[in-house]
C-alpha cells in the first residue's frame, strides 16, 4: 500500500520548504497550524534556527476557532506580533497545515487584509501539509518573485535594478557591480534542505567564477543582499536550477522575462555538462540526454541514484561519462505534471514502491541517503554511497553533509564507486 511507511521517514513537507525558502529574506512567515509544523521544521528541517533565527511563527490554531472560522483572531494575532518585532518585516507570508485547508480558509483574502492594514506586502503560499518541501519552496519563491518583481513595469524595474546594484556595491552587501564580461546567473533552488554543508555557497560562487560566471541572484541561501536585490534577477543571462525546488521560479522567469534556464548541479569536472550548457545558455537543456542516446553495454550492475532528482541526474551524468556504467536516476519526491527534470528515469513515491524497485537490483551500487538502508533486503550485499540530506535524514548525519561544489568532489564520488 503506497500510503504506508513501515520504517522509512517521509521527506520534509511543504511547510518546511516554504519556511526554509523564505528564511533569509527579512520577512515574517506565519504557519496557520495548531502546533506540530513549526516544531518539526525547526527541529529536523532547519539548521539555522539556533544561531540565526528568522521571523517564523505559528498561529496555535485551536478547534473552536477552526470550526467557527475565526479568521479575525488570526489576522489580529499577526498584526500584534508584527508590532513586537524589532524591525518592520519586508513581507508577511502565510502558509498552513491540513485543517485550515479543509475548512476553506481564504488565505488570499487574509493576505489582502493584512497588506491593507499593515502596509506590508503580504502573500499566501498555497500549502496544506500534504506535499513535499520541493513544491513548497518552489511555490514560495515563485510567489516572492511575483510579489516583488512581477508587478513592476519594465522601465521602473530597470531603474530600480540599476539603483539597487549600485547601492549594493557601495555597501558591499550585494553582488559585485557589473564590470566584466562574465555571464550572469540566477542560482535557483539553493537551500539547506538540499545543500546543507557549510561553505556550499562560497564553493559554488568559486566554481562559477572559475568558469566565467557571476552570480546575480541566489534563491535563497547566503544572499546578503536579500530582498533588495531580488529585482536584479530579471537582468540575468541565465538561471541555474540546482534542485527541483528551483524549477518553478525558473519557469516563472523564463515565461515572464525570457530568461533561459539550465537544470543541474555543476560539479568540479572539466567536462561538466551543466557548466558547458550554462555557458551556451541553451534553454532547458536536458542533463544526461547526450549520454543516454546510446544504450550502455557495460556488463557491470547499474548505479542507482536515489536522491534529490536534480542532484541525482547530475551525479549520474558524471558516472556515465567517466566510467561508462549504466545509471538509474530515481526521483523520490512527489510527481508534478508541470515539472520535468532532465535525466530522471523514474519517479518512485513512498516506501513500498521504492522497496520493490530496489529489490530488483540486489547487486547494484546505490547512491542515497543513509535512511534507505532500512528498506534494503540485504544492505551488506549492496555498495552504498551515502549522501545524507537534511530533507530526509534531518540533522542526524550533519557531520557528513556533502559540499557538492567543492574541488575534487567528482573524483571522490568516482573513487568511492570503485573502492572495496
Amino acid at each position, binding site marked *: *500500500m503506497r*500510503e*504506508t*511507511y513501515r*520504517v522509512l521517514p*517521509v*521527506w*520534509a*513537507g*511543504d511547510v518546511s520548504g516554504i519556511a526554509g525558502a523564505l528564511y533569509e529574506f527579512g520577512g515574517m512567515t*506565519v504557519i496557520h497550524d*495548531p*502546533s*506540530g509544523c513549526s*516544531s*518539526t*521544521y525547526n*527541529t*529536523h*528541517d532547519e539548521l539555522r534556527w*539556533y544561531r540565526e533565527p528568522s521571523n517564523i*511563527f505559528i*498561529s*496555535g490554531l*485551536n*478547534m*473552536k476557532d*477552526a470550526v467557527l472560522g475565526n479568521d479575525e483572531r488570526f489576522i489580529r*494575532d499577526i498584526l*500584534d*506580533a508584527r508590532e*513586537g*518585532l*524589532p524591525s518592520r518585516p519586508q513581507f508577511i507570508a502565510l502558509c498552513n*497545515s*491540513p*485543517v485550515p485547508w*479543509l475548512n476553506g480558509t481564504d488565505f488570499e483574502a487574509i493576505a489582502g487584509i493584512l497588506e491593507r492594514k499593515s502596509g506590508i506586502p503580504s502573500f499566501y503560499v498555497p500549502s*496544506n*501539509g*500534504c*506535499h*513535499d518541501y520541493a513544491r513548497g519552496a518552489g511555490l514560495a519563491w515563485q510567489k516572492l518573485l511575483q510579489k516583488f518583481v512581477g508587478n513592476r513595469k519594465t522601465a521602473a524595474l530597470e531603474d530600480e535594478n540599476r539603483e539597487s546594484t549600485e547601492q549594493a556595491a557601495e555597501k558591499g552587501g550585494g553582488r559585485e557591480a557589473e564590470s566584466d564580461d562574465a555571464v550572469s546567473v540566477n542560482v535557483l533552488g539553493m537551500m539547506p534542505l538540499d545543500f546543507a554543508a557549510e561553505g556550499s555557497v562560497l564553493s559554488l560562487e568559486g566554481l562559477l567564477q572559475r568558469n566565467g560566471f557571476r552570480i546575480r541572484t541566489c534563491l535563497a541561501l547566503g544572499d546578503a543582499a536579500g530582498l533588495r536585490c531580488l529585482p536584479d534577477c530579471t537582468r540575468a543571462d541565465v538561471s541555474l536550477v540546482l534542485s527541483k525546488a528551483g524549477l518553478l521560479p525558473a519557469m516563472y522567469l523564463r515565461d515572464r522575462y525570457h530568461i533561459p534556464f539550465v537544470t543541474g548541479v555543476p560539479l568540479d569536472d572539466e567536462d561538466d555538462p551543466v557548466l558547458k550548457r550554462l555557458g551556451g545558455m541553451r534553454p532547458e537543456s536536458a542533463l544526461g540526454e547526450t549520454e543516454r542516446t546510446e544504450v550502455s553495454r557495460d556488463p557491470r550492475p547499474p548505479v542507482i541514484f536515489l536522491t534529490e532528482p536534480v542532484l541525482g541526474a547530475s551525479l549520474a551524468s558524471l558516472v556515465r561519462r567517466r566510467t561508462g556504467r549504466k545509471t538509474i536516476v530515481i526521483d523520490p519526491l512527489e510527481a508534478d505534471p508541470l515539472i520535468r527534470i532532465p535525466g530522471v528515469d523514474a519517479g518512485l513515491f*513512498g516506501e513500498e514502491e521504492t522497496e520493490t524497485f530496489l529489490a530488483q537490483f540486489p547487486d547494484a551500487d546505490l547512491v542515497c541517503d*543513509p535512511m534507505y*538502508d532500512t528498506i534494503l533486503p540485504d*544492505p*551488506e550485499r549492496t555498495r552504498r*554511497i*551515502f549522501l*545524507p540530506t537534511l530533507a530526509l535524514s*534531518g540533522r*542526524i*548525519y550533519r*557531520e*557528513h553533509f556533502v*559540499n557538492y561544489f567543492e574541488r575534487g*568532489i567528482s573524483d*571522490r564520488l568516482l573513487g*568511492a564507486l570503485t573502492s572495496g
Partner: protein
Amino acid sequence: MPDTRNTPEGGQNNIIRIRDAKAGRTFPWGLEYNCPVHEHWNIVHTGMLIPECHQIYICTDNCLRGVIMTAVEMDAAARISSVMPDEAEIFNGRLEEITIRGVSDVIRKLPKRPRAVQLFPVCMHHFIGCDMRYIFDQVEREFPEIDFMECFMDPIRQKLTTTPEQRQRYQMMKVLAGEKGPEDPSKVSILGENLRVRDSDFMEILQREGIRVMQVQDCRNYDEYLAMGQAFLWITKSPLSKYGLEKAAALAGRRSLYLPAAVTYEEIDGQLRDLLHLICEASGRSPAEAAEKLDTWIQEQRALTENAFRKAREILGDTPIVADYICEPRPVGFARILLEHHLNVVRILADQISPEESEDLEALRNSYPDLELMSSSASDSLYERERFAARYGGCRSEAGNSGGAESKILAVGPKASFFTGSPYFVNAIEADGATGYMGIRHMLHLMCEAFREPKNPEIVTGKGLGLPGVWEADGGGHMIGRAVFLA
C-alpha cells in the same frame, strides 16, 4: 488578560511581573514562537517506554515527519510506522478507509507482531468527523491478539480540553486494568513517569516499609509491564498523568495517589503522611507507630535540606537565577522556596501557571511582586536572547563561551539556558526524576555543579534528554560494511 504594559521592556507580550500574573491562561494567546530547545519528551518518547509496543501515526507529511524523526533520532525507527493519506483521499471522504487499511498493512509488514500498538489519528480526523470508534473497532477485530491504545496526536484540541499527552498516558495505564490479576499489597507501581523516579522521599518511605516498587523503566517485556497492574497502589507525580491515573485506577479498582512535585515543607510532609496512611490501610497495620517514625525521619530531612540551602548560598551568593518549567515541573513553587532561602531568582520561565501553584503564586505576589515571569512561546520571545544579553551583559551563548564572572547567570533548565545564553546551566528535565526533600537537595546539588562547570549551550537542541540517541552511536552505528559517506 494580564497587563503587559508594565513589563521591564514595556509593551512586550512575553514578560510580566509576578504581581500581574494569574493561574490558568497566564499569557494571552497569540502567534507562537517555537524555541530550539527540544530536550523535553514528547508523545513518541513516552510511548516507547512500553516494551514490545509499536506506534502508528496517520497524518500528512509535515507533522508525520516530526514524530518519525523523533523515533529515528532515538534509534527507535523500527518501533514506529506511519500512514500518509494523500490530498484526494482526505478530501474525498476516504480517510477512515485509508486509516484502517493502512494500519492493517503496516502491522502485517512488521517483522514481528507487536503485543501492543499505540494508534495516533490526528487533528484532521476530528475535523472531518471520522468515526473513530469504527476505526478502532475494525483494527481490533482484525488483530484481536494486539492491545490497541487509542492515542491521538491532535494538538488542535489541547488548549480547550485534555492534551494528547494526557490521553496517551491514560491509554498506557488503561491496559493494566484489563489483565491486572489479584491485588498485591506488597507492590506499588509508579506510572506515567518519563524518567525513572530517583532521589525521592516517597521511594525511601516505600523501601523502609518493605514495599516493592515497580517502574516501567525496569520492564523487559510487555508481560512485565502488564504485571505492574497487580500493585495495590498506583502512584504518579506528573501533572500530565493525573487524569489518566485516576481514570485507569478507578477502572482497575486500585488505589491511586497523585504526588505532584511538592516544594514547601508542609506540602511534602502532607504527601508522605497520605502515602503512609494508604500503606497501613492496605496492610491492616496501625498507622500510629509508623507515623511516629515518619515524623522523626521528616525532622532529619528538614535539617539536611536546610543545610543544603546554606551550602548553596555560600556557593551561589547573589548570582541571578533563571528557572524554567522544563527542568522544574513546579517552577513557581520552586522559585518560591529558593527565594525564601535567599537565593536570587530573577525570572521564571513558564508558558502558564498551573492552578496547582495558586498558593505559591500568591506567596510570590505578596513577597516578590517584581519577579519576572516569561513565556517561552510568545512571539516576542524570538528576540528575548538579545534583550536579555543587552540587559545583563556579556552572558552570550556561543558554544564554549564560559562567560565572564560579572555576567554569570545560573540557568536552571535548558530553556533558561537558551533564553539567557548562559553556559552555566542545569541540564535536566522533570526535576531529574527527583522529588520531596531529597529532590530539593538533588536540585541544589545540580545547581552548584552547574555554577562551577560551564556546558555547551547548544546541547539543548537534542531531543528527549536521557534517551539513547543515534548520535552517540557515531552517526548511526548500525551502518557498517560496504557503506561509505562521501564526506
